[in-house]
């Protein structure tokens, strides 16, 4: 059975220890695409966090009503409703961000992090725990995006917080449009290969940090890295005869 964690831990685990991007390697596609600029990353992170928190709460509320056979379509419908709401909000209030994010905003529907949390956590845990889990994971996602975008924007485009006024306008602050740092940046970092490069290096740094804190290394291959591990027939078969829940990820939701 799952060991009970305190609510505080449910919140904080998503930020570094089980960071969805850097440690669970989820949501890679939006990460690589959006982390070109810090402004877009903040926008994407906030939008995804909003969807994640709302969908986690609703799915947790409905967890006893949704039949397990059709849970994935049910989750998708819930997530898609919130994505539509968020997209309408972004279009209405921050149209510049809507243009910058393009297709990646509606693609939050199929973001692995959101569906993964719904499947691995919210479908099995109480509402407060799911709310905090979603909030922590969302902040972890935003944090990873901002770290990558800071490196890529400063070195790759030579700017920092370019176009931030599209976000600050919401709070009545205008005029500040970011810093200009280099006139001849390393343009490759804003392209796809640079995205993979920075992603790998930041992931290596996160692993090093976690190792230094004495926490287990992220297992990139192997079932325990998978957020579906708890409900996966393959893993559970192994667990029956072998040790229970060796990976940190497995522990959270084996209350099947």
């Amino acid at each position, binding site marked *: 059975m799952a060991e009970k964690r305190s609510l505080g831990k449910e919140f904080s685990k998503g930020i570094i220890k089980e960071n969805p991007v850097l440690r669970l390697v989820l949501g890679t596609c939006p990460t690589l695409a959006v982390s070109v600029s810090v402004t877009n990353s903040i926008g994407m992170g906030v939008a995804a966090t909003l969807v994640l928190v709302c969908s986690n709460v609703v799915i947790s509320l409905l967890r006893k009503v949704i039949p397990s056979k059709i849970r994935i379509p049910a989750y998708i419908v819930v997530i898609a409703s919130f994505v539509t709401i968020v997209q309408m909000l972004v279009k209405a209030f921050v149209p510049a961000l809507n243009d910058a994010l393009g297709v990646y905003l509606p693609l939050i529907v199929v973001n692995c992090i959101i569906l993964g949390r719904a499947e691995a956590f919210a479908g099995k845990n109480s509402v407060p725990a799911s709310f905090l889990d979603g909030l922590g994971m969302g902040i972890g996602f935003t944090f990873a995006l901002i770290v990558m975008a800071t490196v890529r924007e400063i070195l790759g485009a030579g700017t920092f917080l370019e176009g931030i006024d599209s976000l600050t306008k919401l709070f009545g602050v205008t005029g500040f449009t970011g810093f200009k740092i280099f006139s001849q*940046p390393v*343009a*490759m970092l804003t*392209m796809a290969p640079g995205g993979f490069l920075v992603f790998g290096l930041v992931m290596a740094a996160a692993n090093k940090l976690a190792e230094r804190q004495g926490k287990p290394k992220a297992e990139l291959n192997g079932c325990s890295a998978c957020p579906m591990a708890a409900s996966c027939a393959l893993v559970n078969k192994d667990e029956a005869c072998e040790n229970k829940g060796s990976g940190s990820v497995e522990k959270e939701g084996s209350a099947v």
Partner: protein
Amino acid sequence: MVNGKNLYVSASPHARASVTTRGIMLDVIIALVPALIASGVIFGLRALTVTAVSVAACVISEWAFRKFILRRSNTIGDLSAVITGILLAFNLPSGIPYWMVILGDLFAIIIVKQLFGGIGQNFVNPAIGGRIFMLLSFSGSMSAWTQPGAGFMNLGKVDALSGATPLVSDKLPSLGEMFLGMRGGCLGETCILALLLGGVYLLIKKVISPAIPLSFIGTVAVVSVIAMLVKHEGPEYIAYQLMSGGLILGAVFMATDYATSPISVKGKIIFGVGCGLITCLIRLFGSLPEGVSYSIIIMNILSPLIERVATPKPFGTPKKEKKAKKEAQA
């Protein structure tokens, strides 16, 4: 036995060649010297300082990264970092800013070579990796070709002339000028004579096998003949295709890198033909004027697959297993 003292029991191999990594790398450096001298003569002192900066950056970054970050034994003594430095510099225009050279070196040594496990483990040729990184990042500075004019030959006339590489220019230098390297381009790629001298030295010393250079250059020649016939050009078109760009430098010094090219002769020929075809495709149909470095990097990545196809069969094993299987099934 009468004299038991001289009998040793040891595991094979019993006969060892005296070839060492350091010795091979030293031979490659010797082979690069004529082209280095030529670059100094053609493009002036700055060609030599760019090379010196590049070599220093490669060696220092390899030493520092292994000592302070990986904390492993140091490998700068095998001289492979020196070659990466020279080759990367040979792929740059002589007017490139030094800080860009250093960044390219850091990418080549740290990202391409050391992060994948150091010498022998790099997945692509480090010098080409560094060049493509710089090409993508600083495309303006990387294609600001210096025309020969700043060299020792006409010292004092002008500092530098910039112009297009013969692959994109309308006004072509004569074939003799092309052979001696009196044209615009990267600093080490222009003097065909010096590169061929180095290549012959490597072949005589058996550091490289002729399979890759011959199949690479041969494929480009064959495709150029076809293109010549299609485009109704004169026969000098082939000579220009073979002598322009970085074809000779790439075929002799970069595509023959041990770690990133297949081992068997059959594999080497597939590798060389692939390099030649991709080079020609990019030159004839691509938006870039030159494709040698991209062709080599693509074939570098493919070489493990080529290796799988081209593994030689051990002597004595049945030749046609498939046929035998079919017969057995029938």
